[in-house]
């Protein structure tokens, strides 16, 4: 398994950090609304894929662009980045908020996407099985809601959060608020979701406390060419808790 190397790009004036490793068909991973859990898990893909993990603007090592107020700004950002990286066609994997973004990207630019994998994606308005309003949850309670087995997340968290850690989490929450504070769900997104024609895999942990696993079926109603894989005993960060979920993505994309 290859280690990631770090590239720094400037995309439309925004510092954009991209971690890449491995060789093979390109696999782009969109992270979720926080980056504290890191990308170690993705090393398992590097023996079969060229793995490309960008930090979204406003998260982790990438810079801020306070003019980004809409998920579509991120779609445009990635069109620019993929052109810059000369990535014409690639596999796209998105986690949570990154799943929302990946599905939106595929609904608009499906011809650029080979296969699509969505890990506990956000963005679905499902009144029967609503997503938890994570912006309303006190920061110190969030980690406990992300996983069923806290040990897998614990190693990514500082024993005692310092000001830098708190500041970084606050920054990422602020980025999310810019996008979702007033409208956590966008009915237009669902309206156009049927345009995703790519082979799609939807992965979920059956103990997800943030987005109920029942939403997997709702997603399949919108994306006809989708399969579902549910992992027992896993929470929202199913890819951290279940290595077999990471492997299932690789198998599906191969």
């Amino acid at each position: 398994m290859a280690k990631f190397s770090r590239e720094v790009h400037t995309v439309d004036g925004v510092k954009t950090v991209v971690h890449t490793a491995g060789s093979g068909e390109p696999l782009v991973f969109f992270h979720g609304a926080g980056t504290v859990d890191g990308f170690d898990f993705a090393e398992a893909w590097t023996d079969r894929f060229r793995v490309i993990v960008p930090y979204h603007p406003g998260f982790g090592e990438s810079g801020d662009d306070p003019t980004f107020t809409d998920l579509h700004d991120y779609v445009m950002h990635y069109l620019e980045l993929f052109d810059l990286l000369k990535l014409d066609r690639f596999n796209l994997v998105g986690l949570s908020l990154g799943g929302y973004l990946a599905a939106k990207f595929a609904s608009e630019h499906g011809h650029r996407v080979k296969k699509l994998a969505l890990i506990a994606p956000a963005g679905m308005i499902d009144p029967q099985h609503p997503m938890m309003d994570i912006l309303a949850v006190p920061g110190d309670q969030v980690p406990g809601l992300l996983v069923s087995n806290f040990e897998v997340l614990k190693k990514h968290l500082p024993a005692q959060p310092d000001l830098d850690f708190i500041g970084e989490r606050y920054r990422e929450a602020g980025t999310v608020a810019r996008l979702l504070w007033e409208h956590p769900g966008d009915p237009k997104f669902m309206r156009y979701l049927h345009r995703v024609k790519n082979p799609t895999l939807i992965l979920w942990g059956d103990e997800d406390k943030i987005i109920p696993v029942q939403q997997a079926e709702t997603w399949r109603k919108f994306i006809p060419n989708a399969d579902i894989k549910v992992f027992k005993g896993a929470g929202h960060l199913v890819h951290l808790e279940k290595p077999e979920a990471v492997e299932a993505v690789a198998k599906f994309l191969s």
Partner: protein
Amino acid sequence: MSAALRFNSMHFMPYVHLPENHKEHKSLWVNFSNKHYDPDKGYDLYQRYLRELVLADQLGFDAIVVNEHHNTVYSMMATPNLLAATLIPQTKHAKICVWGTPPNFMYPNRLAEEYAMLDVLSKGRLEVAFPLGTGMEYWANPVNPATAREKFKESLKIIVQAWKEDGPTSFYGNFYTYRFLNPWPRPYQRPHPPCYIVGTGSPETIEIAAEFGFGYSAVFVTQQRAAELNENLRKRAHHFGHTIRPEQTPIMSFVYVAETQERAEQEYIGHLQRFFEDFTRTTPQFLAPPGYLSVDQLKMRAAMADKLHGTFDFKAISNAFFVAVGTPDNVANQIGDWTQRMKTNHVNCVTHVADMPHWKTVKNLTMIAEEVMPRLRSRAPAAHRMAAE
């Protein structure tokens, strides 16, 4: 510049009937259930608090101050303009200060209209302050805290344009489009009532005050910090071509006067303690919704909160903040000292806090008006030479 020292009486109108187990609630803001609000008790409190503000006018305070907060026992002034409208016919001389409605929670034209109405209704006695709104208000109102500062600035532009320019004008912004900005009535005072920005010291907010040439009322900051902020405001305002006058930087202070020092402390300290420990009690999450503060400000405030953590210490608080409690002489000396050091002639006195009973508020207002103000006014010119420098 007027040489007169100016005294305001400021009220929060708290809902004081807290349930016995209220300490179990980490926050008396945002999510503290309104089932605890009894309208009968609320009626009595409104009657009483309004009488206290009217009394301040009768006793010779230069201004009475109302303000806005939501979802909290801290304040029953959800829409301060209603209170201002109630107070106008009951008062004669005092300026009516609505300090104020966060513009983000209203359409800017509507706020311009309401303030203009109050100004005309009072024949030019209105003063307004524009707060961004505390973090807590952004959990209560459907407005994005992460874009609050941009929206705030745009709202101010619209309000000032509506007041200064003959309508109709138009405005095309990021948040608002006005094809016919032409609010009736216009303010009584030309071009508009005196304006302040209220804040707790974010440099971003001071920059806005400086740009518009507005006053800045620093609230809940230490004396040292207030001095720094005012100095910074003067500097930054100068950069934008404005000169900040002494009355534009009011001191927000907690004042209580009694016959002796001991008696003043004995009558007051418990209420001040409950103000800080109960009525302002909330969580870090509610204080700083996502994106409301810059990351630097968030870290600074988190570090400060760690330092301040501990039991209520009256001596420490009164040394650090603007708190004057004691005899008329002591309080007058302290206020005189502040006005010189802060280079201002404008003292905004919080005359009622927390569960202070009516008799103490009446006593306090009377003592300030009859004992403290004359002492300071007799020596005001000296203070004001300093202030004007």
